[in-house]
């Protein structure tokens, strides 16, 4: 059901944030948005600014979460990142976190892809 997608997505983002924290990332922003779009997580580690796109799917039967973060989506994240940086020159990259949940909400897979763009 479409109305549950946002709930799933929110849960997936929570899972991703927890993972990033344990990896030693400092979370700067969550759901940073303006009228053009949204960046799920903005984090920082070792002086590198990281823009994270989180994709969550329940089961892999209808496609992988990785497939849902295609060229277009990543371009959008990139554009948003440019807006966020507002001309500042700082080392940064774009990451994708793929979250796969089981029917009852257990995390079955959690993959972090670094520097995908």
């Amino acid at each position, binding site marked *: 059901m479409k109305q549950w997608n946002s709930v799933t997505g929110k849960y997936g983002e929570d899972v991703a944030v927890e993972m990033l924290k344990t990896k030693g990332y400092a979370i700067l922003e969550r759901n940073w948005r303006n009228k053009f779009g949204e960046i799920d997580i903005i984090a920082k580690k070792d002086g590198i600014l990281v823009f994270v796109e989180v994709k969550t799917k329940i089961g892999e039967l209808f496609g*992988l979460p*990785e*497939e849902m973060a295609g060229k277009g989506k990543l371009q959008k994240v990139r554009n948003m990142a440019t807006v966020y940086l507002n001309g500042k020159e700082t080392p940064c990259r774009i990451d*994708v976190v793929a979250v796969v949940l089981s029917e009852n909400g257990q995390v079955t897979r959690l993959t972090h*892809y670094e520097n*995908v763009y």
Partner: protein
Amino acid sequence: MLTKIRSTANIGLTTIPIDVEVDVATAGFPGFTIVGLASKAVDEARERVKTAIINSGFDFPPKKITVNLAPADIPKDGAAYDLPIAVGILIASEQLPEETVFDLKKQFFYGELSLDGTLRPTRGVLLLALFAKNITGSQLFVPETSANEASVVDIPVYPVPTLHRLIQHFIQIKPLDPLSYLPIKDALDMEPPEFDLAEIAGQEQAKRAIIIAASGGHNMLMFGPPGTGKTMLARALPGILPPLTEQEALEVTRIYSISGLLPPGASLITKRPFRAPHHGVSTVGLIGGGSNPMPGEVSLAHLGVLFLDETPEFPRSALESLRQPMEDGTVEIVRAAGHVRYPASFTLLAAINPCPCGYLGHPKRECICSQRQIVKYRHRISGPILDRIDLHVSVSVIAVDKLSQSLKNNPNAITSKQAKTLVVSARAIQTKRFTETKIYTNSQMKNKDVKRFCVLSPESENILKLASETYNFSARSYIRMIKVARTIADLDRKKDILPTHIAEALQYKQMV
């Protein structure tokens, strides 16, 4: 993991080996990219390969897959890289241990995949086979539906019905049977002609000319009012053409293989081509072309006949473009993608009416065309084209009593079978004559060959000289006439060209 699979690309009729390098990276965001100057059709292989792998019961690895088609500067077109890419992915993702695939350096993969994993007929398999023949120990894996093309080449060819069956072959569950080698000699067969010469009423001179044209490969022009049998004579021509030799059959089949015109399951073009394009044909359709240059009608008629019915109706640009191939026997097509050369050694057979209404010079009917119309009509075929045509024959109106006679069986009329025997024996003489050269017929002789093979007696030379002076023949016509005389002498089984042969050749020359 990185794997290298071998395949080939065809640029015109040249075959270039292509290494399909497939890398399935252990790290990195999943994706599937193909690099190496891939055209749209090759780029779309991503979707076909992905779906075909899944539908064949394997996993498509959710990893970063990079395919490189090396060398990177040669443009790749067509769907033939589907199979090598799919096999490469299966090996690189370790779903297929590399040891089971015996020898990747000697194995060539070629073919288009459909979404369910079956292999579709793919153009150019014969060219791949001819290329692979030069590499000792090579094996071919090609679509089952196109595999017969390669059966005339003596190397192991495995016809692959589906991707799944190919994998079964490699893991040795159910090996594929290699195709048995089919010697070309056995493939060449003879079919009965569509029209028999004996069915055509009268026109003895035209029949004689058509036999000469078939024997020596000379260009011929038929000239006459509508309904006198020009088209029928042309249709009868394939029936008297000599069978293709092994070498010729391979040459012709290569062109049809690259054009994708071989009927599915056929291994070889066994009949001399007879191409009769409609007069609406464009220059590109006739000569060949396109952004990835393909052979045109002149190349498809290679070693056979190109019949232009109603020749003046063809676009002038198309007709004029015939000049180079008529002279050189090849066409060179230059496009942005590169330049290719296709063989185009054909016999031109043209049929024209004397005027737009068709009845100029008719013994009974009156022509209604104005002088201007007639001149305009004649001008549609330029002098240089007419100069390249050796045999000009008038196909005149047949008298009614002759027509009725032909409907009852006329025992005197020459049949296609008899004509063919004549033609075959004349060709045999030519084959023997040209064993050391690269040509097959008298019409293909270059000037130095004419000097060598066509010795004229002083008397013959005198006749020719006299005629040339009287009618102002061009230098080309002069040489061409000697070639026709050579063919007539061959039909007569004479070693030397006698005055009678020259005289006959002269009467087929245009005298206007």
